[in-house]
């Protein structure tokens, strides 16, 4: 994947973006500033127009091409390379080729019930049943296409259309129905802007109705991702969608080029703040002391840049401003800049290998900046 990475020369030539607005930075400046220079979201990106160095932006998720950062600006520690230009950001599953189908058929054999097993395997590999794969199975086994299509449309498990990364199933059984499941479906339809059986435009969520989930006493039931939500009311729909979306985000972190691990030190005493004893997102966490009012506690951040996951010992109210300090020298981490999201003060941390990361001190705010052009060491 990494060997195909050709962003830097492409960005330098600048030929791919001849139609850029004049007030935007040039590709050379982009590289110097560390702005995502190959993002297709050039016109509306607010970070870009501000000339800010941003390595992860919310708007990115709408962009079809990954934001590419030149090799020269990548931190020197164990960073994951970006996918080649044509590939989506590691989310798209590979297309099944004839060899794959052969292998599946070989594994399943042609005994009783092989057909459903083969289709199941194709579905789990590709996420759905592509027409091409069905035709290949038909050709290789001599089973008519009609049979395959009939089975694929008979069972709810199989899907002929690409599915979202997550499925929301709203129970429409009798018990759930009388407790207002139809209104729930309407609410999901309204908020997702899709009909049951369809997938949202960003490929995140597939909405489905099911006939009974066997938990009628807890109805109306909604299954979102791997979680069951019981006694759901229309008012909870937004919350469920948020939870499902967040879940999908943490799952996507692995292999996503926008999330990479960084190691940080206290800017005051230069001790490493990394805590290998407690992993968050599969990487050593960043340990800090947080003070809120009278209360002082140890908090741990994910060292995956862009993840934003935090673990608290005790609950701190959302939006409350905390004071972060180094657990070793007890020095308060105070910076001069303010959060680009909410304007609160930011706590600076030195990145090992050179650079400065600043995190917002407000609970719940994920605002942060990363500047790797500054050399502190």
């Amino acid at each position, binding site marked *: 994947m990494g060997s195909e990475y050709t962003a830097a020369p492409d960005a330098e030539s600048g030929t791919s973006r001849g139609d850029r607005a004049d007030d935007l930075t040039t590709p050379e400046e982009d590289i110097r500033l560390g702005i995502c220079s190959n993002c297709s979201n050039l016109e509306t990106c607010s970070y870009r127009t501000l000339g800010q160095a941003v390595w992860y932006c919310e708007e990115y998720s709408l962009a079809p091409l990954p934001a590419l950062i030149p090799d020269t600006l990548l931190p020197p520690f164990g960073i994951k390379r970006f996918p080649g230009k044509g590939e989506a950001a590691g989310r798209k599953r590979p297309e099944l080729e004839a060899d794959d189908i052969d292998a599946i058929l070989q594994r399943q054999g042609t005994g009783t019930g092989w057909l459903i097993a083969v289709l199941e395997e194709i579905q789990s590999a590709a996420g759905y049943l592509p*027409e091409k794969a*069905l035709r290949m199975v038909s050709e290789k086994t001599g089973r*008519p*296409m*009609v*049979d*395959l*299509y*009939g089975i694929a*449309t*008979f*069972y709810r498990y199989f899907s002929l259309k690409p599915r979202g990364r997550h499925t929301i199933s709203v129970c429409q059984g009798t018990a759930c129905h009388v407790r207002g499941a139809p209104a729930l479906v309407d609410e999901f339809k309204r908020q997702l802007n899709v009909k049951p059986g369809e997938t949202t435009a960003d490929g995140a969520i597939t909405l489905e109705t099911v006939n009974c989930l066997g938990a009628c006493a807890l109805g109306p039931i909604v299954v979102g991702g791997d979680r069951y939500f019981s006694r759901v009311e229309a008012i909870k729909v937004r919350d469920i969608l948020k939870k499902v979306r967040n879940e999908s985000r943490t799952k996507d972190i692995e292999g996503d080029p926008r999330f990479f691990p960084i190691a940080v030190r206290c800017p005051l005493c230069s001790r490493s703040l990394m805590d290998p004893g407690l992993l968050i997102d599969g990487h050593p966490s960043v340990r800090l002391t947080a003070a809120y009012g009278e209360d002082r506690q140890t908090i741990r951040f994910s060292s995956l840049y862009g993840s934003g996951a935090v673990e608290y010992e005790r609950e701190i109210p959302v939006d409350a401003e905390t004071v972060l300090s180094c657990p070793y020298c007890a020095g308060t981490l105070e910076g001069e800049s303010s959060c680009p999201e909410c304007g609160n003060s930011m706590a600076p941390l030195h990145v090992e290998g050179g650079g400065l990361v600043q995190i917002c001190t407000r609970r719940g705010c994920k605002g942060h900046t990363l500047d790797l052009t500054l050399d502190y060491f």
Partner: protein
Amino acid sequence: MINLKINGLNVSVEKGTTLLEASRFLGFPIPTLCHVDGLSPYGACRVCTVEIMENSKSRLVTSCTYPATEGLQVRTASSRVISARKMILELLLASCPQSKKIQDLASAYGVRRQRFRQEYEDCILCGLCVRMCEEQMMAKAIGFRGRGEGRSIGTPYDRKSEVCRTCGGCMYVCPACQLRCTFNQAENPICGACENLSPPCLEKDNYDDMMCSMSPCLACEIKQYEPLKGEK
């Protein structure tokens, strides 16, 4: 040979014979929609329902799929069978009233009303065309798709099939494809026997090309449905 009783008549048939074949062989008429000789029995339309006596209990079964068994008692036209068939035809009329075959049967069985929500489907999902395509034409171009309410017959992805030879066998056997005559009336759920208008038989020549189901014309015999005693 298997000995059984059909309408009180002792018969012996070969093993593997269905009740439909045995009854027809003896001359007892049983109506069918989804049965064609030469295609495997399917039991979809239920019109061929007969009553059998099993362990001194009577039961309704589809004669096209039920094999003759030793000592079985069969009744092909008992009042229970007739009323069941009438109900089945009424349901078929509710879904596919434009089929000539269904209207003919309804007319023959004296179905004079249709009490269900009227639909106008093109297909009764009897599966004759699917079996024709597979068993006689060896093509397998069409098949069943989906499930339950969304079940339909057609080609994969609704595209023109590459294995179809456009033989027309599917249309030939289809009981719903042949449209009924509606004469000059708007389409109503039951063939209203337009010929019932007076004079019924004098202008008969004019209707020769109407494919009228009633042959011989019994139009003058047909009256509007009259409620039975005590029925509203």
